[in-house]
């Protein structure tokens, strides 16, 4: 199944080549968790980070659905 991964702020560096802006489309196996997706791209999991799935809070063990939009960024400060 396919999901869209968006990596914001400094997590942008973990995007694969060919990504458009902050996002890339990813093929993942059915039943995959968010954490597996993150580790595939080398996003560090020991850091405080925020995961949004379709704009809503999600935890790393959440199982992804086809068409999900997963946005991840470090927890820092705002503006």
């Amino acid at each position, binding site marked *: 199944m396919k999901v869209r991964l*968006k990596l*914001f*702020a*400094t*997590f*942008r*560096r973990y995007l694969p080549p060919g990504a458009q*802006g*902050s996002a890339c489309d990813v093929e993942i196996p059915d039943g995959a968790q968010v954490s597996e997706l993150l580790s595939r791209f080398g996003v*560090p999991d020991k*850091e*405080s*980070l*925020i995961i*949004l799935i*379709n*704009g*809503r*809070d999600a935890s790393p063990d959440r199982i992804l659905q086809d068409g999900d*939009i997963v*946005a991840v*960024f*470090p*927890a*820092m*400060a*705002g*503006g």
Partner: protein
Amino acid sequence: MFGWRGKILRVDLTNERVSVEAVDPQTAKNFIGGRGWAIKYLYDEVDPAVDPLAAENKLIFGTGPLTATPAPTGNRYMVVAKSPLTGALSCSNSGGFFPTEMKRTGFDLFIFEGRAERPLYLWVNDDEVEIRPAEHLWGKTVPETEDILLEETDPRAKVACIGPAGERLVKIAAIMNDKHRAAARSGVGAVMGSKMLKAVVVRGTKKTPLAEPQAMRELCKLVRSEVNADVKKGSSLREYGTAYVPPVTSEMGILPTHNFQTGVFEGVENINGPTLTEKYLIRAKPCFGCPIACGRLTRVDDPVYGGEGEGPEYETIAALGSSCGIDNLAAVTKANYVCNELGVDTISMGVTLSCAMEMYEKGILPESDVGRPLPFGDADAVIALIRQTAYREGFGDALAEGSYRLASNYGHPEFSITAKKLEFPGYDPRGSKGMGLLYATSNIGASHMAGDLAYPEVFGVPEKIDPLTIEGKPHLIHRFEDAFTVIDAAGLCVFLSVRYLFDPDINLWPTRLARLMNYATGAGYTEETLLRAGERIFNLERLFLLKAGFTKADDTLPQRMLEEPMPEGPAKGHVVELDKMLPEFYRLRGWDEDGAPTDAKLAELGLKR
């Protein structure tokens, strides 16, 4: 005294005289500094019913006990007065280099009183204080003013000044310092202009005495090392500045778009931090002594939008970008430069323009009144109208009054997205409900800085909470408002304080902040008494508002936020259930059902009505 200098400079502009007075240690401790001392003096000396542009209003520049100390981000000051935009308080904050230099002259506060008969500026050179003529500066832009002043005083001095906007009493005028930093909100620039005060120039060489310098240095070193570790990991504002935020808030569906009609902005990728870095960034820029360096030194090479300066910040990108339907970052950056040069608040300018755009598109605001079409997305109109606003030319004269008066004049105040007439910052509260309660209850109107619940609701600091629920938000807003009051009064920046000086818990327990305060001042705060002082300041500000005529009815939000469900995105269908949060907030604050502090609460805080 330690930390505090214990000295106030009073500037009588009517008679062109200055005097110096001491601050008693108990008042100093009870009201922390800066913002806290300012409201104490304002409440005691100014009738809250005063016309904000009359001579009887006072303009207070307040540094804190941690300003000009080794505390990282101890580089801030607050500008406090009664606001001409809102009729409530202004508590506008700025960093850069001016506040540190001001504290080094040996004064904690400057209190400006009366009104001069001719343009003046104040020059404080350690102990030498002069009131000097400023006719030759009147009419000059912010950068022109600073350049001239540094030449005629001292090249190492620092300058705070108004531009043409403040001179013309534009109600959304800012006080700029170090050319590109802004005490922007609530029209403080207009108060300064109403006093014919063009600028304040400071040169200070006095080091702030500290109660426990060794302990202070050790704690500061530890904090700096933590910040540096985060910078290295990429977990800081250094790399992209606050400009990293638009994709985050758009993803959550809360990025102000088309005057807060929606929270999802299609063009968001064009106006984000990475785009700014790729195209226009020269380098990151810190305020004095700051290890984060969130500031942006930028330049745009473009025939139409060319310029150089600092920024844009997130709030500017939201207000002058997505709220106006503009996804051209060069144009937003240029709009930011123009606001800085002329001394205008970018937030209020952008949201006032987007208000006008919505009224134009709905046929309420005629093109003939504006003098040109004004659809969403017209960047050239935005830039032209910013200039007109600063100079009160044509339609700019109407924009200069802020969105509430503008929209009311056309019979449609509901298009002004404000609380207490202060334009909303960059978080639509229908998708960040704690922010809704904050905007409704802050003592300056819709401010994100008065108790920024976006920290946990959006950014996950100190921990992530659900932005779409209302449970527990009254408690959190109470805690955050008091904590942020302490940060403001101490003279620190929130970007460092929230994450590194409070325990990593949602209730914001100020363990390290209390230690820093005590190492600096020796005043023996506990975490409780420090937060209590923040609560005291907040309550005194509230008393000022009540005496100025504010009531519970003013603790509210625009109709759009209360009744128009968010049309799309993750917050689709949501409104702000303010009526379910406000009573509990009042109760937790020890206020009665009308939002007034009870006698018991005032007694507890040692305040008198």
